[in-house]
């Protein structure tokens, strides 16, 4: 936004100061950029460029020599049924985690929106998992979801001898992990939604009531539309966060059974452990590209929706 002389029309004449020359104003912005730019260069640009280079080399622990090998790393990953499988699992996991997390969080936000003592207690209660380390959460849920774990014990009260291995079958393992991820982060996303809901003018909702809108219509046509900025933030954060999943998966299934829950970062971890650093870099590059390729259009779409909605 650029201020013009007209913007100061309400000020008293003696308070009006002449605008600084355009050149001076332009020169003044850069010191504010330096800290952020330095961080981005140090922790993103340099590692990213290095990674970009190593992703196309045969760098490994077996030799000091590092040579350009074109697309060999990617070919090897395809041959070993790792690349497409890990991308597929990562995207499925991210989509599931994003949907489950947002549905849970929005529901909780609607239930806990009003600031009361009871709601305050539950907000804090549901926020507790956010404070637990993901690895610890993984171990806890690993025990809960075991065939003889707490979940099956509860189900056994209604269905005798129920001993399904939730983490022992590909589909249920992936869905279970998405639920655990939702459990872990929903408390935080709920707070974002509550803040968004509290920013909606109550007069709009009241006007809709006067016009005869029912509860669903008030939610869907007013509140949900006006939640768009919060929705943009939560969808992007949950989706891209899930694409970077590692610790929770490592602590529960280690990517198994087989490769059913092998997200890209777990595949990268395995390759790194084998001393195949170039191949691990290739997988790291895939994660980066995936985040950018998915993130930018998603943000653009959701931002447009904010305006149109």
């Amino acid at each position, binding site marked *: 936004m650029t201020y013009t002389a007209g913007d100061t029309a309400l000020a008293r004449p003696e308070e009006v100061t002449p605008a600084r020359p355009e050149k001076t104003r332009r020169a003044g912005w850069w010191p504010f950029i330096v800290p952020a730019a330095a961080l981005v260069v140090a922790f993103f640009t340099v590692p990213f460029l290095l990674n970009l280079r190593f992703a196309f080399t045969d760098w490994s622990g077996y030799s000091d020599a590092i040579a350009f090998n074109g697309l060999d790393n990617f070919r090897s990953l395809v041959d070993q*049924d790792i690349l497409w499988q890990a991308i597929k699992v990562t995207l499925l996991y991210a989509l599931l985690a994003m949907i489950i997390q947002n549905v849970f969080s929005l529901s909780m936000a609607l239930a806990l929106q009003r600031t009361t003592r009871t709601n305050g207690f539950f907000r804090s209660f549901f926020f507790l998992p956010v404070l637990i380390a993901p690895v610890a959460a993984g171990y806890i849920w690993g025990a809960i979801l*075991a*065939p003889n774990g707490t979940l099956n014990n509860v189900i056994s009260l209604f269905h005798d001898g129920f001993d399904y291995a939730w983490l022992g079958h590909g589909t249920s393992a992936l869905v279970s992990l998405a639920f655990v991820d939702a459990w872990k982060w929903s408390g935080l996303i709920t707070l974002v939604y509550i803040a968004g809901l509290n920013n909606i003018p109550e007069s709009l909702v009241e006007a809709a009531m006067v016009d005869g809108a029912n509860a669903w219509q008030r939610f869907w046509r007013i509140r949900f539309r006006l939640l768009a900025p919060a929705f943009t933030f939560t969808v992007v954060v949950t989706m891209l966060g899930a694409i970077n999943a590692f610790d929770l998966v490592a602590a529960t299934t280690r990517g198994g059974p*087989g*490769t059913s829950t092998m997200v890209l970062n777990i595949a990268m971890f395995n390759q*790194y452990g*084998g001393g195949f650093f170039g191949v691990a*870099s290739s997988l790291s590059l895939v994660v*980066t590209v995936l*985040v950018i390729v998915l993130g930018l259009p998603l943000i653009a779409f959701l931002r447009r929706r904010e305006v149109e909605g």
Partner: protein
Amino acid sequence: MKRFRQAIAVAAVLALTACSANNSGNSGGSGSGVKADGTATVKAKELTIWSSSADAPYVRNAYKTFGEKFGVRINLVETPADDLNYIQTKWAGGDRPDLLEYHATALFWSLNPAANMIEMSNMPYVKRSGVIYDEAGSFDGKIYAAVTVGPGQFGMYYNKKVLAAAGLSAPRTYADLENICTTLKQKAPGVAPIFEAGGSQWPTQQQIIVYLASIEKAQAYTGQLLAKKATLADPAGPFVAALTQYKKLQTMGCFNKDATTAKNESSFQALADGKAALLPQNTSSLSSLKAVYGDDIAKTSAAIGWSTPSVNAPTAAWSPSYNGTWYVPKTGNADRESTALAFIQWITGDGYPAFLKETGRFAVLSGAEAQMPPGIQQEFARTYAGDKSMAFNANLVGFSAQFPVLMTGLLSGQYTPAQVGELAQKSLEQGAKAARLAGW
């Protein structure tokens, strides 16, 4: 322009969240030129040792004794026993200990020993070690490891009471295993004939190693695979046959119900409680088994037996012990390198008899007599004295990175035996190329 700036800013933030690999260069070690010929002396006051978090007590006692005897302060850094990434990460970043406890299998090749470790081919202990370095602790004909503890064996622990109650004896072949499974399912339906710990991934390899032991002995299967005279992907080959047999046992209901999720830690208790009859394991896990019996070896031996069934005939699949296998990395510090070599000289020389006694294992160095404790360890000695071969996967470079993953895929039904064979061959190819093996 404004939109472009926003896009750049967003892209930078997004990429920052995605950027995860820290690819610092592997500087390697330069070495100080200290002679590794048995003439090294203690020169440093401190020694940094990377040693397994699952070390047996005798390993830690060895450090303590050496430190006290020679006035060297031991700076011990524990490395997670089942996490290769920990050492790889530190190593790739140029971090080196003075002494490294590590695998003597092909896994150590990924630390680039030629560039990063002191060659110990001329150390006095090598001549007293028999032929062990033909298959372990060496790379490209040069010896880098000091293996001081008798090898471990893959086989199966069995619950004596459970088998005896069903009128069964210890298995010798896979036909015996099928028979045990069928009989137990009839006579003791609550008992899992074989305990599988798929939730920990790595234990799933053991049944395949056990199956292939007699084939490895008969036809040197590993050598054929590395020479490209055989392939793991061969649908009629031994590897796919082993996987098919494994799947058959699972289909017959021979594994515990929670085979895909059970953890290794719970397997010993299940065996002791009689919930499982057989437990595929390595003899190195005896301390975990003993812990269930209050560290009482007599009680353990009374309840649990050891056998080494294989496809055709009993054969022990041995692998060099991680505990007590040391390397001396090149650090460039002459005093520290000399002191680390002095430790190797001491543990394989003057300190060896007491160390051997404490390990309770066979002697791997001549000149000292092992005093085997009674009980199950004598069964270990008996199976090792019989037919044996090195675990088939020990020197299949790169293979172990994916093998446990593929095995749990087989267990869960994601892959067929033939698919595992094909994918395993691909991972072997990846490792062999990385290690620049001839012909790959």
